């Protein structure tokens, strides 16, 4: 089997690192796209260590290339032909996506209120109406949080993804695709937002390779 770590453009440089099961990571060039792969003698191991190893290969590749599409962990092909066929079938979209993320990193932001709203800690709702009211209040607070935090950060980003939040009404998580030269300004703005809004805590993580922006459109075979 062949495990896929990331997809790069044709001129990409693949560093000599070791991947899952310490196998050598290699480049396969197909239709204007470079696939970063390693051979696997067994199915992908479902462990946190293996997921972290996958991530460190993607990091090593991202350190040397300015356009990287990380592959989801667990992406494997029966043989070289299956890999080539899969890349060819999406190569136009892959090249477009590579241009979209070129020169950018992903920054993650988690936002939450420091305290629950008044009444939230009272008795759990006993009627359907109370339940819905509490649920709506949580939604409204998450909405308010997102409205304060998201637009100023989106301004500095090429693209954004709301990871979750509004549906659960808790903390809000989002991912931002930020040009390399705007990362410092982005972090400074996160700090400024936190100062400007007492009661809100913001956590900024990254830079990450652009995992959240590597997803292709849905396609059914």
């Amino acid at each position, binding site marked *: *089997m062949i495990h*896929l770590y*990331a*997809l790069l453009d044709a001129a990409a440089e693949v560093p000599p690192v070791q991947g899952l099961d310490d196998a050598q990571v290699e480049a396969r060039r197909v239709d204007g796209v470079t696939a970063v792969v390693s051979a696997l003698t067994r*199915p*992908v191991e*479902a*462990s*946190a*260590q*293996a*997921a*972290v*190893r*996958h*991530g*460190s290969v*993607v990091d090593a590749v991202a350190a040397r290339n300015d356009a990287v*599409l*990380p*592959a*989801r*962990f*667990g*992406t*494997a*092909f029966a043989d070289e032909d*299956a890999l080539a066929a*899969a*890349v060819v*079938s*999406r190569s136009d979209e*892959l090249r477009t*996506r590579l241009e979209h993320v070129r020169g950018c990193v992903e920054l*993650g932001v988690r936002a939450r209120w420091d305290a629950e709203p008044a009444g939230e800690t009272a008795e759990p709702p006993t009627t359907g109406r109370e339940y819905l009211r509490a649920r709506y209040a949580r939604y409204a607070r998450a909405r308010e949080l997102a409205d304060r935090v998201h637009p100023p950060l989106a301004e500095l980003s090429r693209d954004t993804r709301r990871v979750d939040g509004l549906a659960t009404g808790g903390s809000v998580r989002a991912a931002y695709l930020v040009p390399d030269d705007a990362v410092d300004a982005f972090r400074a703005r996160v700090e400024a937002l936190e100062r400007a809004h007492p009661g809100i805590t913001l*956590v900024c*993580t990254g830079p*990450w390779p652009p*995992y*959240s922006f*590597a*997803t*292709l459109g849905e*396609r059914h*075979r």
Partner: protein
Amino acid sequence: VSVVERSPYERVSLVELVDRVLNSGVVLTGDITLSVADVDLVYVGLRVLLSSVATLEELEEGR
């Protein structure tokens, strides 16, 4: 993988990393070999990993 040396800040990053590699990234065509149960297994492993890091830190603080 020397995960035990990570600081609390890096622990947050570890969770964020595993979330990303499992739930986002390119999927080409029917090529995902991990089942839903496998994904759960990775999260269980992550929790064990994080709790062992926490235990280690407590032990070190108690020295």
